[in-house]
């Protein structure tokens, strides 16, 4: 089973839920899909063993063949190429690697070179198999790295994906193909509003989902009332607690100090597993 942990709003507790859940299961695979700001391993502290570069193809111009006709730049929807007198400028960060420029070039002057945009790291902690993607600073596009990262998914294990915040392309790429989405929110106005946006996204993808309310008690009843009305199951409430917040600030998963939470996460997983199997 592939379980994605997502939220819309940032800082609601996606990583907290993903890590504590992975640590409460036997044979889990935890994948940090927040490649812009990966935080899982601050908590998991896995021993890392492999690092591989992720590359994308970007065009390179053979100036001996090019006659500066400008067809490549006209074709490129992403403005990754510009033809100026006696030169073709390539803006690699804008390139989506569609290869359209090479297709339209009448003089076969475009070749491809690999450009590193980030890394995929692997490690283990106990029985948790861990992967993370790390986007290089200054790179704009998380999706190509995410696609490579998701090839590491091993469905013989209990797979948990820690999604990035927001509701746009990196989130959609993360949750695509998942069997279930856990939406982590907090009972505040912002948490509620972004939960609604995320519910729209998950409904659009037709993936079954449920909600976890984190920092329960900090705000008001708005999230609960909404979930009741929309018949969205609230699967867990994590109380607003100084102890949990302090452990979080130090990078300690709270199941390691509050052992009574392990069976709760275990039950949560079984409950989702049953619903998905049905």
């Amino acid at each position, binding site marked *: 089973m592939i379980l994605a942990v997502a939220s*819309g*709003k*940032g*800082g*609601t507790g996606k*990583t907290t839920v993903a890590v504590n859940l992975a640590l409460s299961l036997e044979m889990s695979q935890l994948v940090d899909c*927040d490649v*812009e*700001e990966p*935080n899982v391993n*601050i908590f998991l502290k896995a021993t890392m063993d492999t690092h591989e570069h992720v590359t994308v193809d970007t065009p390179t111009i053979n100036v001996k063949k090019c006659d500066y006709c400008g067809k490549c730049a006209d*074709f490129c*929807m*992403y403005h990754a190429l510009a033809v100026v007198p006696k030169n073709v400028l390539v803006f690699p960060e804008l390139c*989506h*690697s*569609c*290869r*359209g420029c090479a*297709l*339209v070039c009448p003089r076969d002057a475009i070749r491809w070179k690999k450009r590193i945009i980030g890394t995929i790291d692997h490690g283990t902690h106990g029985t948790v198999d861990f992967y993370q993607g790390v*986007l290089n*600073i*200054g*790179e*704009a*596009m*998380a999706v190509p790295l995410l696609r490579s990262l998701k090839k590491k998914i091993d469905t013989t294990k209990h797979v948990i994906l820690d999604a*990035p*915040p*927001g*509701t*746009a*392309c*990196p*989130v*959609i790429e993360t949750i*695509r193909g998942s069997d279930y989405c856990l939406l982590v929110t907090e009972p*505040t*106005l*912002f948490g509620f*509003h*972004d939960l609604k*946006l995320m519910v*729209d*996204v998950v409904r*659009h*993808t037709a993936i079954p989902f449920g909600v976890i309310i984190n920092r329960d008690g*900090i*705000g*008001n009843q708005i999230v609960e009332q909404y979930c009741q009305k929309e018949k969205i199951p609230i699967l867990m409430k994590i109380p607003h607690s100084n102890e949990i*917040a*302090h452990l*979080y*600030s*130090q*990078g300690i998963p709270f199941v390691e100090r509050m052992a009574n939470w392990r069976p709760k996460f275990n039950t949560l997983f079984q409950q989702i597993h049953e619903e998905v199997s049905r």
Partner: protein
Amino acid sequence: MKQLAVISGKGGTGKTSITAAFAALSKNAVLADCDVDAADLHLILKPRIKKTMKFQGLKIASIDQTLCIDCKKCYDSCRFHAIDEEIHLIKESCEGCGVCAYVCPVDAIRMVGRDSGFAYLSETRFGPMAHAVLTTAEEASGKLVTLVRNTAFDIAKQKKKEFILIDGPPGIGCPVIASITGVNLVLIVTEPTLSAIHDLERVMGVAQHFHIPAVVCINKSSINSENTSKIEEYCKKNNIPIVGKLPYDTTITQAMIHEQSVIEFSDGILSHDIREMWSKIREVLTQNG
């Protein structure tokens, strides 16, 4: 006119609450909510929409099945796996490159406009505001950020406003880059947690990569004083001014629930600290050229 972008790397550190407070303090600003895929600033500022602009991000392929001869050239050429073997478009995967339309021998594919959301120009109790809504499961949020920023820029110029205050998205990728390109200063809001410190260092890297000056605010500083010291050391070592050190204070949540900025909601210590921070930022903004 000076532009300030409020960013954080990590989500949930308090960007929007702080931007809303600045909106209440700055008498002569335009607000821009650039967190277009999880926008929240409007919940506090309650903009009255004056002008709506349709946003078309990337184009999208449109396949005419009656013309298709099933040669599968488009299927073979698409790098995004956005066309399946039965030659149906997978809308969510299409990045609008146009390769399929180019290789189709019978012109069965056209690239068409793709409605991906709306940008708005609005009026709030603190001045004009530019904001947007991205349609569910649409892409190109970086482009929509640029549309919001251009909208804010035009109205700021027209009304001779002194500042543009940008509420930025979390992360370090394209919406963040689009939010900070060309601004005069970024304010990075962090908190004393190991995650936020890690994310601060990465987003600081992005600001440096684009040569944008940055200042830091440590929010919720009282939740872990040891980590607060770590942030202070990091900033000192890297010559990044700390313009504010706010205590952990539930007033921020209370104000949000009451749909008000902290400044309007309370006259307590937090409001006092945010006032001081704004005057420091104002000074930095007006000094820098």
